[in-house]
């Protein structure tokens, strides 16, 4: 195994030091380190951050390997600076059994670019009728701790209550896609001034907020952990702030696209901007950034959702919702949070690595842990970022098998120069190593 000596990197953007990575571990941190036989990585000007952890990706395998595979999604993740990604359960077949989650986990191990952590479905077939075998998935080799019917809301309040209660025994968490389905029948975009003009069926903010309000009350009632996926509205941030102030065990994530883009994008009718929950208003974007800055929102999660060309190159209403996110997530956070001064690099590490790892129960897995500090003795999961680099996004150059990037043609700051997974370079000089 190669030993790496990283010279003059700035951990968390602070004073430059050298880091020695050997046998999967950070073995030394200090100035003027040297090591015989080590491969030297010149990192002057680069920022070192703990490897990013994504709570929310769609890797599409099994079932839609034409849109993404575990391997291509893993490569996109590594290029984005991730060392662990949670793979959502809405595959075909659905990841609602130990067999399917183990298959996804094993595919991730074989690809060897990031740790692919399967999410288990809450209900059989994501149908929202009865619980899947959550315990079997938790006890499997995939060690599932996050359960979600993402793509669908666990809308039945009694079923949601049982799910929240049941996973307490597994140290698990239910990650809710908050969308009251009766309020979003046929919904295409945020309901407001722009949907009124464009003649597209509106997706009201209240459909998200009502479910979050209900679920934080349920979580409080049964003393369970709740995680809220892709929070998209100012009202949701308010409800979460209230719940946290009352001691409810709730965590939440926001996507890069909801931090940057608004429903103005829908005016082109280009379905690359169609996503669920939809892009909201400027006021929502501001509230989400503030919520992420003050910790009301715990994590940035990509909701990376690859789609084949034919599922996007169509009329808006018949296109599938979702957009790519893994390769640009950190750049978006730099642009929307770091550059305006809302978050420092410690904050970025916290929201993109430490807290998501804690929510997914990945922080305490010995040598397989994620979201650990950049310190001697910790697993060598880290990335090196050039914060001054600016580049224009070219969808054709992405590692994902799909091309549905909403950032095409945008100039974004920051470039992941290198990523290390347990001391192995998965990305070097901005290129995937396998």
């Amino acid at each position, binding site marked *: 195994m190669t030993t790496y000596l990283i010279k003059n990197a700035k951990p968390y953007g602070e004073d430059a030091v050298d880091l020695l990575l050997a046998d999967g571990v950070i073995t030394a941190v200090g100035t003027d380190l040297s090591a015989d036989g080590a491969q030297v990585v010149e990192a002057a000007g680069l920022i070192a951050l703990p490897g990013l952890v994504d709570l929310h990706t769609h890797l599409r395998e099994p079932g839609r390997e034409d849109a993404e595979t575990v391997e291509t999604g893993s490569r996109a993740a590594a290029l984005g600076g991730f060392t662990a990604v949670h793979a959502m359960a809405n595959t075909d077949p659905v990841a609602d059994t130990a067999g399917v989650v183990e298959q996804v986990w094993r595919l991730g191990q074989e690809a060897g670019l990031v740790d692919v952590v399967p999410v288990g479905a809450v209900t059989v077939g994501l149908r929202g009728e009865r619980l899947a075998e959550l315990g079997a998935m938790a006890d499997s080799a995939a060690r599932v701790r996050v359960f979600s019917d993402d793509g669908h809301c666990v809308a039945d309040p009694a079923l949601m209550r049982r799910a929240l209660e049941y996973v307490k025994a597994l140290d698990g968490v239910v990650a809710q896609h908050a969308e009251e389905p009766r309020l979003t029948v046929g919904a295409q975009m945020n309901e407001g001034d722009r*949907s*009124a*003009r464009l*003649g597209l*069926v509106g997706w009201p903010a209240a459909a998200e907020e009502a479910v979050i309000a209900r679920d934080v009350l349920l979580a409080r009632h049964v003393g369970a952990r709740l995680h809220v996926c892709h929070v998209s509205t100012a009202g949701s941030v308010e409800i979460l702030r209230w719940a946290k102030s009352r001691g409810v065990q709730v965590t939440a994530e926001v996507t890069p696209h909801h931090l940057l883009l608004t429903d103005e994008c829908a005016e082109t*009718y*280009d379905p690359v901007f169609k996503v669920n929950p939809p892009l909201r208003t400027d006021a929502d974007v501001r509230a989400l950034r503030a919520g992420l800055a003050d910790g009301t929102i715990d994590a940035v999660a990509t909701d990376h959702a690859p789609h084949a060309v*034919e599922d996007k190159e*169509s009329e808006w209403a018949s296109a599938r919702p979702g957009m790519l996110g893994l390769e640009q997530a950190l750049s978006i956070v730099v642009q929307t949070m770091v550059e305006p001064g809302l978050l420092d690099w410690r904050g970025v590490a916290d929201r993109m690595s430490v807290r998501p790892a804690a929510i997914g129960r990945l922080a305490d897995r010995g040598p397989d842990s994620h979201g650990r500090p950049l310190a001697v003795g910790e697993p060598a999961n880290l990335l090196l970022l050039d914060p001054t680099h600016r580049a224009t996004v070219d969808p054709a150059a992405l590692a994902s098998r799909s091309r549905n990037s909403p950032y095409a043609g945008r100039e974004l700051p920051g470039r992941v120069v290198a990523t290390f997974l347990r001391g192995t370079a998965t990305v070097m000089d901005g290129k995937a190593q396998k």
Partner: protein
Amino acid sequence: MKRHLLEAADLDRADATLVLDTAGQIESALAGREVKKLPTLRGRTVVNLFYEDSTRTRISFELAAKRLSADVINFSAKGSSVSKGESLKDTALTLEAMGSDAIVIRHQASGAPHRLARWVKGSVVNAGDGTHEHPTQALLDAYTIRQRLGRLDGVRVAIVGDVLHSRVARSNVWLLTTLGAEVTLVAPPTLLPVGVGSWPVAVSYDLDAVLPKVDVVMMLRVQAERMNASFFPSAREYSRRYGLDGRRMAVLPDDAIVMHPGPMNRGMEIAAEVADSARSTIVDQVGNGVSVRMAVLYLLLGGAPEGTT
């Protein structure tokens, strides 16, 4: 004039007035002729690409194109390659490869014409897209108002009914306000879009209060099935509160007119005695539709119609 006619919201006052004036010139050029045809678009091909059944709109466009001597291809999505899953893009590229100069599209998805305009080199005319817009309907409505009342500036127009699901309402809101009319939308709150407050119009829930103060009442088609999704309790209650009957028509100012884009639900939003009254412009609207669509095709595809300057 731009290359496409995608939405009335796109038209500025000069463009919109040009279309109406051109329609008037075409009408006079054809008046009294035995053969109602101009040679303007000879050798050009217009495709009517219809994903929704709308015989009246399709025939109106077909007649408009033929009276300009264009070749017309009617492509109905039903029973064609489209029903076998061919995408809009593939269909459009195929039609263009066959030599179409303009595509007139009617589609159930809002924004379909905008997508189409990005894929083809020729002109795209929106003949109604989902619940978004139906710009030529608004143009013919504006033409009809101007014909009957002699002006558009300051004309008070009430648009009554299912604004939420109406592309006719949206197009008329943008076009008529651009041309200086004062528009009031009248509907139960359930049939107005959230966000209507940002439109340059007044909003009322009370038809009786609005009627004495308007020059034009435009009744929108309301589908009785909307009551199944609780937009209103029953067809009877809707018609009692928002239908235009003889009693309500009587409170209109003397020279006020009643419009309807068709097809009408007689007895629902409009009573037969109103539809057939002297105030009704419904038959004029149909005739004017052909002239206005001729003007649009002429302006988009170019060429000077005979007998006009």
